[in-house]
């Protein structure tokens, strides 16, 4: 195992077949991936709300 000069890598296998990064941690303090599901549900909520209001508006406007 030797240190690697390549950007994004910290170590490189002597056999030059296996490279990986060892700085990425998954503890509560360091794990920062976006919660994609939250964004999707908000997007769905707005779309769903507009759809329902639109349908109700159509019904009430026709009744008028």
């Amino acid at each position, binding site marked *: 195992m030797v240190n690697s000069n390549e950007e994004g890598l910290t170590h490189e296998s002597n056999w030059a077949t296996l490279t990986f990064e060892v700085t990425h941690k998954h503890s*509560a*303090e360091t*794990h*920062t*991936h*976006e*919660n994609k*599901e*939250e964004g999707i*549900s*908000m997007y*769905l*909520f707005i779309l*769903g*709300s507009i759809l*329902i*209001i*639109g349908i*109700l*508006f159509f*019904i*009430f*406007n026709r*009744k*008028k």
Partner: protein
Amino acid sequence: MKFNLKRIVSIVILFMPFFAFAHGVSSSDQAILNNGGLWSYIYVGAKHMLTGYDHLLFLAGVVFFLKGFKDIIKFITVFTIAHCITLTGATYLAINANEHLVDAIIALSVFYKGFENLGGFEKLKVKAPNLLLMVFLFGLIHGFGLSTRLQSFEIGSDYFLMKILSFNLGVEIGQILALIPIVFLITKWQKKESYPAFYKATNTYLIIIGIALFVYQLYGYFNSHH
């Protein structure tokens, strides 16, 4: 207006999946708070208000009921004072409650506003409670909901009060940003012929979504470890 119970129940069931993950504390927000100082509390507070649709739905219901910009300012100020009291006070004193139950009451406030706007109390031949008082009471509950959310973050003890006040400032910024398009849309539409249909449609939606959010929060309460 006749309330078609079957139609309302079917729309509520159809809408349930949309609530998943909404309004929760995300790990990305926690990371922002860990690394960003007081500005990050302003940012997360504003983000929470803009994505916390139950607060905005209630405010939209209040704005619908009012006539004139002066009235809007008066009621929004009362709502703001009330939620500042519980947001700051409850967080500082570490007063907490189950967030599902608090959110269930907030959902009822959304239902209440739609019901009142559609003349529900008159139909029941009951005198409607004073709106300013109700906005103040619901403002206290909304603030408590915001407080339980803030308390679910790891915020540490350094600059504790400043962090709470920064989050509160963010909430107010988010509220202003959200109210601008809401007030603009409602006041512009008031001059149009189709306004009565828009009024009925939106307030019926508030009733439906209020019930749906209430059921969803109770489901969350009974299915969580509390």
